């Protein structure tokens, strides 16, 4: 942007040269003229002055002082001295103009990668527009009420979100700008700063710069200016924010320093300052972000209307059109459709309706059934999103991690188009990050180690998603060093996680890494190794009603497999009866069920019962006793044993009868039952009554207290 000054600088230098000619003829008055021109030059170059130029200007000032001290009489060699001085000044100015970066003019640029990040960028822009609106509204409130904590928080969070999104997408200039503004608001939030007009204008200026960025990104997303770098001037704004944060007051000097500021068209119409001549030039060449002059109240307001008119309108059309919807509304819709399906089956199964024998009615019923089924599938699909977004976030993680660690790692994604409930995708982010980190950090070896082992130097981490058995399976595999069984076992024994004389199977050993506090890495890196990785992963996956397991071959790599249900909203359940009560066991947890023959159930110590299933002994849990319900199956042979598979171990649940298998809409039991652990939710059955869904993980888990201890008679 400096080049726009070339002409003016040249003009000024020319003026100085002319005055010098008069000096040589002995006219001391010319010195004053030179001083005037120098002042203008100083403004043009802007602050901070390049040192060389500053030195020469100072020299001139000294010279003029010396002349003044001598009573305005010029020394004989004054002409020559000044001629040399002028040459130096000329050179300094030319150097400044030729230098690639002058501080005041330096603006960071960025390019957007349209390939894999397109969707993320799109999302970022869409989200960003809302955030900008929040900021603008927030500022308007703050102008009325500078101490409103809620509003400060809203604006702070908006910038924070911007920073996060931009940082993730590698949009450094946006991130930096948002970071500074965030700091500013954070200071205001803490009460270190009071919001005044100067600050609100800084915020608005920042907001407009961000909008400019978004609009530029939007243009590139729309196919225009593909690959061109985006430059939006922010450095001056950032400098001013920093200055304000450092406690400097809004410097009245700023008023007389308009050249350094990045002008924008509307503000330039009425520049209240002497250097007005140069301003329109700057404005035309640089019709970009509105970095307005602090005390000029009209400028930001003008810029607001300006940006609203131009950039917001244009970028809107180019982004893919999405309707942003409150997820709660979506959940309510899905719930209601679930209700509709239940209500329909209540009508259809009503005994009196069943006795009706009308061909038309039967046809209408089928039609109704068809519509509700379609409606249900559609409502469900509203919540389904591709796992692509969650997967693509890993790209950057791998890139950064491998860079930091000096490893060569490629991430191969497949099956990103697999769809899954958006609630699950959101929850999936953290576990994925943990596991991909683990793969890169612990799995993939350094390039030289890999080559020495005959592997390609480039390590591969694969992320794969696919549908399988009514659920989704995500695998994270790497071709790294794999898990060392012996080391895991040794570590587990050392940490007291298992007994020293235990002889676990391979699978059980690998399962140990999911225990809290387990980590085989002796030196903790900032990436992983604190032992809070895999247990968190397992906990998150369990919350999603999924399962996670690890397979590994030493020296060849590891595979982590995550199995998840397609949706959190509906489960396939087995309805079972105990006494007069009904419960639902998620089908995903059921391995098999059978009516026991006499002799398969054995007791130990008179209480602990085990059942032999295909030669394996598994503990038997009498569900009736567990839940405090009178069971009709006193003898196990009168009931049914449902073998469940949970994280820990298989268990046989003794129930009175199996009623049927059905899909149910899961409903939360609400906060009133937050503390209890044996139910994971409830569902409304076809008859309109509620049945509770058993939480197989926690049911019959070892109790903290000894069994002999009486349960309080609450």
């Amino acid at each position, binding site marked *: 942007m400096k080049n726009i000054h070339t002409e003016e600088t040249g003009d000024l230098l020319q003026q100085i040269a002319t005055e010098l000619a008069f000096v040589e003829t002995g006219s001391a008055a010319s010195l004053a003229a030179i001083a005037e021109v120098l002042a203008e030059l100083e403004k043009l170059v802007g602050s901070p002055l390049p040192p060389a130029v500053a030195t020469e200007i100072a020299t001139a000032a000294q010279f003029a002082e010396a002349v003044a001290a001598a009573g305005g009489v010029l020394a004989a060699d004054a002409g020559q001295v000044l001629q040399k001085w002028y040459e130096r000044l000329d050179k300094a100015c030319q150097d400044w103009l030729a230098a690639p970066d002058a501080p005041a003019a330096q603006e960071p640029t960025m390019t957007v990668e349209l390939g894999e990040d397109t969707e993320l960028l799109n999302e970022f822009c869409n989200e960003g527009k809302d955030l900008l609106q929040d900021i603008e509204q927030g500022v308007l409130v703050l102008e009325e009420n500078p101490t409103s904590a809620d509003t400060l928080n809203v604006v702070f969070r908006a910038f924070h979100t911007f920073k996060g999104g931009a940082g993730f997408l590698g949009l450094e200039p946006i991130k930096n700008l948002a970071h500074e503004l965030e700091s500013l608001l954070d200071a205001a939030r803490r009460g270190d700063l009071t919001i005044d007009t100067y600050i609100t204008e800084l915020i608005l200026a920042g907001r407009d710069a961000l909008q400019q960025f978004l609009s530029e990104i939007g243009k590139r997303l729309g196919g225009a200016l593909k690959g061109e770098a985006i430059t939006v001037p922010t450095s001056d704004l950032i400098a001013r924010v920093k200055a304000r944060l450092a406690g400097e007051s809004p410097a009245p000097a700023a008023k007389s320093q308009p050249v350094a500021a990045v002008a924008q068209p509307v503000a330039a119409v009425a520049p209240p300052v002497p250097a007005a001549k140069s301003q329109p030039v700057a404005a035309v060449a640089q019709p970009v972000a509105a970095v307005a002059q602090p005390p000029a109240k009209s400028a930001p307001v003008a810029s607001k209307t300006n940006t609203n008119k131009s950039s917001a309108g244009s970028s809107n059309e180019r982004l893919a059109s999405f309707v942003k919807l409150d997820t709660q509304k979506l959940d309510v819709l899905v719930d209601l459709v679930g209700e509709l399906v239940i209500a329909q089956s209540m009508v259809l199964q009503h005994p009196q309706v069943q006795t009706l024998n009308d061909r038309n009615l039967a046809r209408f019923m089928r039609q109704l059934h068809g519509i509700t089924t379609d409606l249900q599938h559609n409502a469900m699909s509203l919540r389904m999103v591709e796992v692509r977004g969650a997967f693509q976030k890993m790209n950057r993680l791998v890139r950064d991690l491998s860079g930091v660690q000096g490893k060569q790692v490629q991430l191969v994604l497949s099956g990103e188009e697999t769809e899954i409930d958006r609630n699950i995708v959101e929850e999936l982010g953290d576990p994925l990050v943990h596991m991909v980190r683990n793969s890169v950090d612990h799995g993939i070896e350094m390039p030289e180690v890999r080559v020495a082992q005959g592997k390609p130097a480039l390590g591969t981490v694969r992320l794969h998603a696919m549908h399988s058995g009514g659920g989704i399976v995500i695998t994270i595999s790497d071709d790294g060093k794999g898990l060392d069984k012996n080391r895991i076992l040794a570590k587990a024994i050392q940490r007291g996680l298992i007994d020293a004389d235990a002889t676990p199977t391979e699978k059980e050993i690998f399962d140990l890494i999911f225990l809290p506090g387990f980590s085989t890495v002796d030196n903790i890196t900032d990436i992983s190794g604190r032992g809070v990785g895999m247990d968190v992963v397992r906990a998150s996956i369990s919350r999603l009603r999924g399962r996670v397991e690890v397979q590994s071959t030493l020296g060849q790599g590891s595979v982590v497999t995550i199995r998840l249900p397609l949706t959190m909203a509906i489960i396939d359940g087995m309805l079972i009866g105990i006494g007069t009560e009904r419960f639902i066991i998620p089908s995903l947890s059921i391995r098999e069920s059978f009516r026991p023959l006499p002799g398969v159930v054995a007791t130990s110590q008179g209480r602990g019962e085990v059942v032999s299933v295909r030669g394996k002994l598994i503990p038997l849990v009498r569900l009736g006793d567990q839940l*405090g319900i009178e069971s009709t199956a006193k003898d196990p042979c009168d009931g049914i044993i449902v073998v469940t598979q949970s994280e820990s171990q298989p268990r046989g649940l003794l129930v009175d009868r199996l009623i049927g298998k059905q899909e149910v809409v899961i409903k939360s039991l609400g906060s009133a*039952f937050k503390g209890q652990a044996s*139910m994971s939710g409830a569902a409304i059955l076809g008859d309109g009554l*509620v049945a509770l869904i058993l939480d197989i993980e926690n049911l019959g888990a070892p109790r903290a207290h000894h069994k002999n201890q009486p349960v309080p008679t609450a």
Partner: protein
Amino acid sequence: MTNQIQTDNRPKPGKYLTFMLGAEHYSLPILKVREIMRLCPITPVPRMPVYIQGVINLRGKIVPVLDLRARFRLPAFADQERVCIIVVQLESSDGGTNLMGMIVDMVEEVSQYAEAEIEPTPDFGSLVDTRYITGMTKTKGTVKTLLDLDKLLTMDGDIDLQQVYREVA
């Protein structure tokens, strides 16, 4: 009970729904009441304190139901003729609202209480747990107890719910 808490919780004048448990009259702010419904089949939730009767399906929402008689340790009521479930709306700690049903013997009426009619909770000594009572009124010759719903339904009261949960889990 300190005076501090009583002044903070001082019931506001306004409309109250009154209902009966045995011979006793109780009132709760009408704004908290979502609906009143006939007693319907309740699905028991195992291993809960006795006063938690279970859950019902309220047009697709799962709503826990609490037996107010059991909550106040009154004897069970035999005549189910006029028994109702009052569904109330509570602010939950996370900012949302929760519904909760309360089984009462019968619903009486909606009455308006002026500020002067509301008296602070008398000191029952240790006889009565006054933590979820905000005050009392005496209108038309009957004494009514004003209940603090949020405390009544969320506070563990005399039983440590968390402890119970731990025991039965």
